[in-house]
């Protein structure tokens, strides 16, 4: 049953990266959109993510619940030593979620909209940045339960070049995902071209940020090169991601909207696979060379049992409903807004 739980944890993280990531990315794209096109971008974006955006963020809650029920030691360690970035990320989640809701449900459309937009855009940037920092810190080997002073225990655990570079890499990936997604939602050729441009920009940004991650890993003495390229799965995943990226750009020019989304999602899967495979089952690498492992540090057997069952039963209810939701709004994309902004 432990493997069922681990798979759910991994899939929840992946879906959060893909669905939530595209969601964050929409805000990042908005940040890099010229003022005169902003309202149009915003409308397309809202049509696209509106119905499912609440559901996107449930994946994070699922992942957290799995961690604290199934792996309490890991959860407790993370939330103690990565307290500060987690708090910043939470602030981002609060600000973003409320700003998006407020701008859609404020009955009066006036200057307040500008404030909501600002909050939305900045928090869309900050949240994935810190999400990436947290992920980077987990494997950077700076988390130090034996630290005796405040800085070592609570600041340097996450503030290092490697973690920050991963943070920016995550931001770029989110922007890329959103741009690819929005290409398919564009109503005319001008919009399409503009999103393709954004996707290219984000792709370049991701490549740069990715290179910086490798440079930072060398500087911080983290054997990232060996983690990624030191095993068959890693090399295969990186190659698959690269090939699919080339294919993706080819298909964009052909105007395939569904396949490019699948390919972008596939790339995220490969990236997550590469970064997690080598460590598995370790999830947090500690400063003293030790680690916290999904296998060795799992919670009580009965807890894992019932968690696994709850997840399986839950997905029987959730997945079909979620697919139907996504599907039915894909079918008739035109009418979404007629009621929401009908006044």
């Amino acid at each position, binding site marked *: 049953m432990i493997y069922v739980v681990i798979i759910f944890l991994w899939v929840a993280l992946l879906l959060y990266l893909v669905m939530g990531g595209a969601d964050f990315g929409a805000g990042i794209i908005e940040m890099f959109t010229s003022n005169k096109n902003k309202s149009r971008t915003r409308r397309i974006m809202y049509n696209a993510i509106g119905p*499912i955006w609440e*559901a996107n963020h*449930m994946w994070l809650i699922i992942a957290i619940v799995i961690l604290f029920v199934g792996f309490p030691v890991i*959860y407790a360690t993370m*939330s103690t030593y990565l*307290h500060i970035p987690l708090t910043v990320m939470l*602030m981002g989640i609060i600000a973003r979620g409320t700003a998006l*809701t407020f701008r859609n449900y404020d009955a009066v459309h006036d200057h307040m909209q500008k404030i909501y937009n600002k909050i939305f855009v900045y928090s869309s940037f900050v949240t994935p940045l810190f999400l990436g920092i947290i992920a980077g810190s987990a494997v950077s080997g700076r988390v130090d339960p034996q630290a005796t002073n405040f800085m070592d225990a609570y600041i340097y655990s996450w503030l290092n070049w490697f973690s920050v570079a991963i943070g920016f890499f995550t931001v770029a990936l989110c922007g890329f995902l959103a741009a690819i997604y929005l290409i398919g939602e564009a109503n005319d050729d001008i919009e399409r071209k503009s999103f393709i441009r954004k996707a290219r920009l984000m792709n370049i940004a991701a490549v740069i940020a990715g290179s910086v991650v490798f440079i930072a890993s060398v500087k911080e003495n983290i054997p990232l090169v060996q983690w990624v390229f030191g095993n068959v799965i890693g090399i295969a995943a990186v190659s698959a991601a690269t090939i699919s990226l080339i294919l993706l750009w080819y298909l964009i020019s052909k105007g395939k909207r569904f396949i490019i989304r699948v390919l972008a999602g596939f790339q995220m899967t490969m990236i997550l696979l590469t970064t997690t495979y080598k460590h598995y089952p370790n999830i947090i690498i500690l400063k003293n060379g030790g680690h916290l492992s999904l296998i060795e540090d799992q919670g009580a057997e009965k807890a894992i049992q019932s*968690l696994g069952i709850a997840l399986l039963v839950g997905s029987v209810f*959730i997945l079909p409903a979620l697919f139907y939701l996504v599907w039915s709004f894909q079918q008739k994309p035109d009418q979404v807004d007629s009621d929401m902004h009908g006044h």
Partner: protein
Amino acid sequence: MAARSQMALSLGFHIIFSCIGMVMPFFMAVSHFLWLRTGNPVYQNITKAWSKGVAIFFATGAVSGTVLSFELGLLWPTFMKHAGPIFGMPFSLEGTAFFIEAIALGFFLYGWNRFNRWFHWFTGVVVGISGLLSGILVVAANAWMNSPAGFDLVDGKYTNIDPIKAMFNPAWFSQALHMSVAAFAATGFAVAGVHALMVMRKQNVNFHLRAFKIAAIFGVIAAILQPLSGDISAKMVAKRQPAKLAAMEAHFETKPYSPLIIGGIPDVKNKKVDYAIELPGMLSFMVYDDFKTPVKGLDQIPEKDQPPIAVTHYAFQLMVALGMLMMGLGILYLIAIWKKKSWFNKRWFLKLFVWATPIGFIAVEAGWTVTEVGRQPWIIQGVMRTADAVTPMPGIGYSFYLFTAVYFTLSIAVIFLLYRQIKMVPEIYDNTNPVSK
């Protein structure tokens, strides 16, 4: 201390957001149903107006809930390390229920004119039911902290863990019932109060009066039933947490014919209550159904295991007083329905409900204070002390200020939005009734 304040603050806000978010869908469903049956467009407009409210509260409830799932670990890592696997069951199910709620809400909010009308209505009902379920599950987790079950503590190790038993701990039912009914009463009165105010101002009377009636009937029925669930809860507290009950009642001395103490100022030093009304034997009667059996008083509980007495006592008295007030209003409302239809046009009648807008939520917060402060110094009753559970990180005070500022801003923003929604009613939802001032 800062950690405790931050948690109390976060939960205090979350409880309001989520109560409204879980109860309003039921109002919405009723009005939606009335629209589908009668075809009267006013009901459709009410449904739409309420659905905006639900969306706002759902979003704020969801983010404050996400924050809480992290805060448990950020503030109480030691507690979560041991308790997580034991009382995690309701949380994992709650995740499921909440997920379903989010999906159903997506269908409902964006589904006007897109689906079969009854399917659309049904998704609204699912929002309400799954919301209520997640509320019950979360309260079940809290109940576990009050009446821990489903594990054995051997030499400081938590073994023999049984998550199912932990979820269905002895207090889960009484607490979940009490909280759910409270949510209906508080939200019912709050929503009714706002609409009553608009009726009094003679704005869109037809719209607001109908909305008022739907919300009020929920609140009224819940308020009248609430004392019953309160009684069940009190008996459970007496059995599992005598210290809490004693503090609630400021009951210092264990003796036969234990009195029910109403009001008063507890004098902790001299172990007596000044200026209180004492009803001899009533406490014994309420707990044990006979007047004689003594109820355990604070004199039998070591001082280091006693909760803060004054706070618990005042909060409990406040909750009961407001509950009684709401029950009284509820009875008045029923009289209005059956005998005095004309009251609905009377200013004094509407005014009563306008005044009652916040009292349900004040009662909810007071009740929450009773159950949380009354459990102190324990975080898990009789098992783990709160002081042993807190994060080792220094500087939590700053985090508390930060969260205070955030929640404060959030509340102002929500009130501001609702105010604007209500202000726009004539233009968006009900242009049949010209505004007359």
